[in-house]
C-alpha cells in the first residue's frame, strides 16, 4: 500500500480525511481530554453515584430489552402471519409510538396513573378503589421506555417475517411441525439477527434517554453527565463519565456484532416467492387473545398518552395556544430542516469521496463518522462544549479575539452536533442503495468522458432520489425529537418544541407541556403518514420506471 501511496492518493482522500476528522471532533475530544485526569468532584461521584449510574443503566437496558422484544416480536409475528379485521390499519398503528418521544410518554403516564390521574379516576368510577399506580420507579420507567421503543424491534422482525419464502413454512408443515414449533424452531432463530439489530437501537435509545429518567428520578449515565456538568460544574468529570458510557456502548456493540455474526443466516429468497403464503384467518378465542396482545402496545404506547395529552391541552389551551407556540414550532422545523439538509449532503459527499479515492485504509474514517448514532447525545454535547471552549480560549489568549458568540450565540454548533449524532441515519441507507446501483453505471459514465461530479449529478443522484427523500424525512423526525443534545447546545434565543415540553414538565407544569408535545407528535405523525404514502405511491412508481 505504501508503495502506491503517492499514486493512489488524490484530492478526494484529503477531503475524506479532513471532513471525517472535523465531524468526529466531539468523540476525539472526549478521548483526548481523558488524559487531563479526572476533575475535583470525581472521587465524590465515584463514591456516591457511579454504582447507581452503572446498575440503573444495566437494569433499564435489560428490562426494556426484554419487554420491547416481547411486544415487538409478538406483534410482528401476528401481523405477518394472520389475517384479521383492520390488519392493515393495526400493522401501521404499531409504528406510531415512534412519533412520541419517550420523555413525553413519561409525563403523560404520571397524569394517567398518578394521584387522581385520569386512568385512576376511571378505575374509581368502576368501583375499583385505588389511589395511584406508582410509575416513578424502575419498573415504571422500563414500561414507559418499552411502550415507546418497541417499534424498533417490531419493524425489524416484521420485515424479516414478511420476507420468509413460502417454501420454508411449507417444508416445516410437511415435516409435521406445529405452528408453535415452526415459530420457536424455525422462524425465531432465522429472525434473531434482525431482532437483535432492532434491540440494539432500543439499547441506544435507553442510554440516550435523559428526559424520562430525569423526570422519574432515576440516576443513569446520561442524567449523571448532565448533573456533573451543570450542578457540580465539573466538566472534566463529566468527560470521565462520558468515556465510561462510550465503553459501555462499545461493549454492547461488540456483543451484538458477535451474536449477529454467530447467528447470521442467509435466506435465499426468490422475489416471486416472498411472503406469498396464505395468512391464516383468526377465529374464535384466538382472535380475542391476539387482538388483546396487539392492543397493549398500541394502547399504552400511543393512544393513552395522546388522550392524556389532549385532555391537558384542552385544559391549558387558552393559556398555551398563542403566537409563541407557533414561533417555537417554526424554530423546531427550521432547525430540523437545516440539519436534515446538511446531514443528507454530508452523507452523499462522504459516500462518494470515499468511493472516488483509492486508498483502502480510508474506509476506517467512514466508520468513525457514523459512530455518532450509537453515542448518547450527552457525550456528543460534552465533547463539543469541551473542544469549542479550547478554540474560544485559543483565539482569546492568542489574539485577543472574543469568538464565543459564534459558538453559543448561533445554531451553527447545534446543527454541527446533529450532523455527528444523526449522520448514520442518512448515510447507511444511501450507501446501501448506492452499492445496490453498483459501480458499473458510474464506470460507464466515466469511460464516456464524464467527470465524477457530473456522473454523480446526472446518473447516481437521480437513481438515489427515493432513498434520499426517505433519509431526509427520517433525519428530520429524529432531529425534531432530540432532547439532550439540544438542551446542552442550543443558543439562548432558540427554543424547540422538545425543549419547551421538557422545560414545562421540569418546572412541574406538566399540563402546560401538553400542547407543544402534541404539536411535535402531530408533525412527526404527519411525516410518517407522508413517508408511508410516498413509498406506496410516487416513490414506488419512480422505482418501477427504472
Amino acid at each position: 500500500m505504501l508503495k502506491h501511496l503517492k499514486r493512489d492518493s488524490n484530492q478526494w482522500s484529503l477531503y475524506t480525511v479532513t471532513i471525517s476528522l472535523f465531524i468526529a471532533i466531539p468523540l476525539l475530544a472526549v478521548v483526548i481530554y481523558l488524559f487531563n485526569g479526572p476533575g475535583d468532584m470525581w472521587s465524590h461521584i465515584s463514591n456516591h453515584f457511579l454504582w447507581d449510574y452503572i446498575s440503573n443503566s444495566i437494569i433499564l437496558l435489560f428490562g426494556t430489552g426484554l419487554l420491547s422484544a416481547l411486544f415487538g416480536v409478538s406483534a410482528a409475528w401476528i401481523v405477518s402471519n394472520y389475517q384479521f379485521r383492520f390488519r392493515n390499519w393495526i400493522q401501521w398503528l404499531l409504528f406510531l409510538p415512534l412519533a412520541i418521544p419517550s420523555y413525553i410518554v413519561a409525563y403523560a403516564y404520571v397524569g394517567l396513573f398518578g394521584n387522581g390521574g385520569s386512568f385512576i379516576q376511571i378505575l374509581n368510577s368502576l368501583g375499583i378503589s385505588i389511589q395511584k399506580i406508582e410509575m416513578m420507579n424502575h419498573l415504571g420507567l422500563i414500561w414507559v421506555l418499552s411502550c415507546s421503543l418497541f417499534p424498533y424491534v417490531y419493524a425489524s422482525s416484521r420485515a424479516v417475517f414478511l420476507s420468509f419464502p413460502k417454501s420454508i413454512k411449507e417444508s416445516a408443515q410437511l415435516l409435521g411441525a406445529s405452528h408453535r414449533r415452526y415459530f420457536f424452531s424455525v422462524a425465531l432463530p432465522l429472525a434473531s439477527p434482525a431482532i437483535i439489530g432492532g434491540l440494539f437501537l432500543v439499547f441506544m435509545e435507553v442510554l440516550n434517554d435523559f428526559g424520562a429518567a430525569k423526570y422519574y428520578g432515576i440516576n443513569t449515565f446520561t442524567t449523571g453527565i448532565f448533573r456533573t456538568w451543570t450542578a457540580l460544574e465539573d466538566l472534566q468529570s463529566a468527560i470521565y463519565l462520558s468515556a465510561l458510557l462510550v465503553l459501555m456502548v462499545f461493549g454492547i456493540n461488540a456483543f451484538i456484532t458477535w451474536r449477529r455474526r454467530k447467528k447470521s443466516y442467509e435466506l435465499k429468497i426468490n422475489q416471486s416467492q416472498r411472503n406469498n403464503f396464505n395468512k391464516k384467518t383468526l377465529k374464535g378465542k384466538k382472535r380475542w387473545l391476539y387482538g388483546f396482545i396487539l392492543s397493549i402496545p398500541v394502547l399504552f404506547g400511543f393512544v393513552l398518552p395522546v388522550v392524556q395529552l389532549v385532555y391537558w391541552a384542552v385544559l391549558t389551551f387558552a393559556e398555551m395556544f398563542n403566537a409563541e407556540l407557533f414561533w417555537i414550532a417554526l424554530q423546531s422545523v427550521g432547525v430540523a430542516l437545516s440539519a436534515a439538509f446538511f446531514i443528507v449532503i454530508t452523507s452523499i459527499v462522504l459516500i462518494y469521496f470515499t468511493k472516488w479515492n483509492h486508498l483502502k485504509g480510508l474506509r476506517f474514517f467512514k466508520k468513525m463518522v457514523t459512530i455518532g448514532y450509537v453515542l448518547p447525545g450527552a457525550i456528543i454535547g460534552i465533547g463539543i462544549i469541551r473542544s469549542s471552549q479550547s478554540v474560544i480560549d485559543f483565539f482569546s489568549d492568542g489574539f485577543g479575539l472574543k469568538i464565543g458568540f459564534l459558538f453559543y450565540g448561533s445554531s451553527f454548533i447545534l446543527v454541527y452536533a446533529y450532523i455527528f449524532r444523526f449522520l448514520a441515519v442518512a448515510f447507511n441507507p444511501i450507501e446501501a442503495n448506492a452499492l445496490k446501483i453498483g459501480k458499473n453505471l458510474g464506470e460507464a459514465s466515466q469511460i464516456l468522458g464524464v467527470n465524477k461530479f457530473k456522473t454523480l449529478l446526472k446518473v447516481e443522484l437521480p437513481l438515489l432520489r427515493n432513498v434520499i427523500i426517505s433519509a431526509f424525512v427520517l433525519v428530520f423526525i429524529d432531529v425534531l425529537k432530540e432532547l439532550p443534545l439540544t438542551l446542552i447546545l442550543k443558543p439562548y434565543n432558540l427554543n424547540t418544541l422538545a425543549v419547551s415540553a421538557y422545560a414545562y414538565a421540569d418546572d412541574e407544569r406538566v399540563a402546560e407541556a401538553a400542547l407543544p408535545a402534541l404539536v411535535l407528535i402531530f408533525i412527526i405523525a404527519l411525516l410518517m403518514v407522508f413517508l408511508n404514502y410516498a413509498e406506496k405511491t410516487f416513490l414506488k412508481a419512480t422505482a418501477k420506471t427504472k
Partner: protein
Amino acid sequence: MSHILDIKNLSKSYDGKNYALSECTFALDTGKICAVVGESGSGKSTLIRLIAGLERPNGGSITIKGAVMSDDNKITAPQNRHVGLVFQDYALFPHLPVAQNIGFGIKAHKDETLQQMLKLIKMDTYASAYPSELSGGQEQRVALARALALNPELLLLDEPFSNLDAALKSDLRQEIKQIVNQVGTSMIFITHDLYDAIDIADEILFLKKGKIQLHCPLSALSKSTENQAVKSLIDELKHNAEHLLQLLKH
C-alpha cells in the same frame, strides 16, 4: 504494423496475497480483434478492467497507442485513455432513454453522431425508448453504440454474448464484427465460449489462473494445440460445454 496496446508484466491482486492476474505480457496490433478466453476466475475481466483504468495494477505497465497509461508511478484516468467498454450487464443508465444513453459522452456534433450511431445499430426508431423496454440484444447494441460514439482507439467488451440465447448470439457476433470493421477500431473481447472466439476474432489469448497460456493468431491455433496447457484448457472448455448440453437435454 504498429501496436495499439502494449502490456508488460501486468499483475493485480485484490487481497495482497492471491493474484488475479500475474506477470502478463502481450501486445495487440492496430485494427485487430482479440478474443480473451478462459474459465471463470481466470482473470479475464480483471485484464480488461486494468486496460480500461478501472482497476489499479500492483505492477507492470499498460501502453495504449504509444502512450504509457499506467505504471508504478502514474495512472491515467479511464476517461483519458480513449478506450470504449461494453459491460457484461451493459450498464445502460436506467433513467435515461436510448438517445440520451448513446449521447451521454458525446461532446461535439452530438445530434449528428447520435443519428449515425442509431443508424449503425439499426435502432433509429428506438431513440425515446427506455432500457427497460428493450430486449437483451437491443440493450447490447445500445451499449455498443454508446461506447463507439466517442470513437475509441480500442474497444473492450466484457462477455458480450453471455446473456443472449444461441440464435441471437450468432447474429450479434457477425453484427458486432461488421460494425467494428466499419468504424475501424481495434477490439478485445472476453468470452468463455471458444465458438465466439473462432467466429469473429483475428487472434486469441488463453488465460488460466491469471497467467497467459497462449497468445496467437487464430490461424495458428491448430498448431498450438500441441501446447499441453492450451490443449487441456480447450478440452476443459469443450467438456464443460458438452456437459451443459447434456444437462439441458435431460
